[in-house]
């Protein structure tokens, strides 16, 4: 097999993995740190993708996408914070079951509303002119848009690192991952922290949705698709570990991309097979979180 083809696939896989990372990192934080299981996390991604296609249709590929990148994550943020403060907040006390029911219901509702609002037809948009086509680096043909995804994700990851390592919120999140019961005991406003983390997670998913839009068909099945993959990434990477999620997302993305060289369709199967394999060998994922199973 052609080495350069494989290399190109690896880069494509890394770009896909970057998108998975953006969605999974937020989910792993709200789950791992705050014990919130949000099955509707993929709905933020889907909403953002549809909103981006609308803006691009209105304003054209270049300006539309740029606008979307700024405006859409903010809209998703508002939506998520509204949901958290009005609905999610009410079911935390009941443990995981209320959350499962609520977020599953939400998944159905948002899906139905998107189908009504944006239409059930699959949409596709083109990337801005200057991001179309390929560049050749060391003889490997790489799609410009993939590189743009990598750059954007890199910036977001850097910001996330800064947030987790340097800010007070980050310290609280890390403390919560280590010992969820401790936070409330030492007087941290867990309520506000949950809202904040849910907001951050939604913004990450929103950014992912926008930059994913020009890559493929935007339709009403991507919410479930992405959230299931995100769960796979989280589990492989270890619950609550953002950097574990990064490694896992890249691994999953590359494995999926490489599998297309061997099998025609269904790269997803590789993701779940990988997840099953990792969990079989390491039942708590790559990063074992102390005191939890």
């Amino acid at each position, binding site marked *: 097999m052609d080495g350069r083809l494989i290399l190109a696939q690896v880069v494509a896989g890394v770009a896909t993995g970057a998108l998975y990372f953006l969605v999974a990192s937020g989910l792993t934080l709200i789950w791992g740190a705050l014990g919130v299981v949000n099955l509707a996390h993929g709905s933020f991604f889907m909403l953002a993708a549809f909103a981006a296609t609308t803006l691009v249709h209105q304003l054209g590929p270049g300006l539309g996408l740029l606008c979307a990148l700024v405006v859409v994550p903010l809209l998703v943020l508002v939506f998520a914070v509204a949901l958290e403060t009005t609905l999610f907040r009410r079911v935390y006390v009941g443990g995981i*079951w209320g959350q499962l029911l609520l977020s599953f219901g939400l998944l159905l509702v948002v899906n139905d509303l998107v189908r009504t609002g944006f239409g059930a037809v699959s949409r596709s948009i083109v990337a801005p002119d200057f991001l179309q086509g390929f560049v050749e680096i060391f003889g490997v043909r790489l799609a410009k848009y993939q590189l743009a995804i990598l750059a954007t994700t890199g910036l977001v990851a850097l910001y996330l690192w800064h947030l987790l390592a340097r800010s007070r919120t980050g310290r609280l999140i890390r403390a919560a991952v280590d010992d969820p019961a401790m936070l409330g005991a030492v007087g941290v406003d867990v309520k506000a922290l949950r809202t904040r983390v849910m907001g951050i997670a939604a913004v990450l998913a929103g950014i992912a949705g926008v930059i994913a839009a020009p890559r493929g068909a935007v339709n009403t099945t991507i919410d479930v698709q992405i959230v299931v993959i995100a769960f796979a990434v989280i589990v492989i990477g270890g619950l609550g570990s953002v950097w574990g999620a990064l490694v896992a997302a890249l691994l999953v993305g590359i494995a999926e991309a490489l599998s297309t060289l061997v099998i025609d369709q269904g790269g997803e199967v590789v993701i779940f*097979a990988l997840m099953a394999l990792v969990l079989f060998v390491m039942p708590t994922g790559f990063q074992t979180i102390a005191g939890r199973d």
Partner: protein
Amino acid sequence: MEHLSWRRALLLVLLGLAAAALVLVVPESRLPAVTRTVMLAGAAMSLNLLIGNAGLVSMGHGLFLGFGAYVVAIGSVKHGLSLSWCIALAISSAVVLAVVSAIIALRARALFFGLLTLALSQVAFVFVARNYALTGGDDGLVGINVPKWLDSDLAQHFVAVGVTTAVCLLLLMILASPFGAILRALRDNPERVASLGGHPKHIEFIAFVIAGILAAIMGVVAAITDQAVEPTLISWTTGATLLVMVALGGRFTFLGPILGVVILETTRTLVQTYSEHSDLVVGLLVMGCALAFPEGIGPSLQGSRLGRWFGGPVHMAEAATPPSTERTAAP
């Protein structure tokens, strides 16, 4: 502990007869939807052996449902086997599948267990959806041959009711047995069970295998009653929907899963005939239940006479002390 009494067994039979008698009131065109509800009720009951009784939150129960259905469909459509052969093949191979997936899934604990079952069902789903030669791919398989006596909506409805009732009776028997009692104890405190001479993994293994086989049997029913199969049956959507139905009805009440299935399926099919927004209505309903009854509707009926019919001796204390599998819940 569940109590096995003639009264409760009789109640299940009466419930089955009532479900069968629905053919008298339901318009003919609606009967297949009712039959499907009955089939899902059996599947949800089998799932609750794991969720409510063993504390194993499986998200991939669709795997077994779909597997049972697909073995029948492939046997009948692709190889022209008679229905009884197909059924025998489906159940015996389901035993193997249940054993293998139990060995894999039970390596992980708590929600990781759930996600591992989800991964297994997704692997099977993608395999089925892409493999056109064997499974018909996305289109599924149509034209499952059934004997003449089974070739009517009425007969198929009776079969679904009969099998579901039998599954419920069997589950009641299992839950009342020493195994069922120990399963409950295991959900409360696995470590204590081990210190009293029980092997937690072995007990969970048997529960998983039983639940898997029963779900596969319901899958066979699905194949017979629809005379067709399609891949979503095997996907995580089915597993998650069943999970939500169990949670909605109340996982700590014996008949709670049936309540959940009836509420969701009835709403869905009714709304579907008038509008295309059944997801919206069902979604809002589920969200409303999450806010009003996070532990399911069943337990809140407990005080009433209806609840005693439904529940059996489920203790309210259970709601207050969630089993140890839910350690990742919000602090």
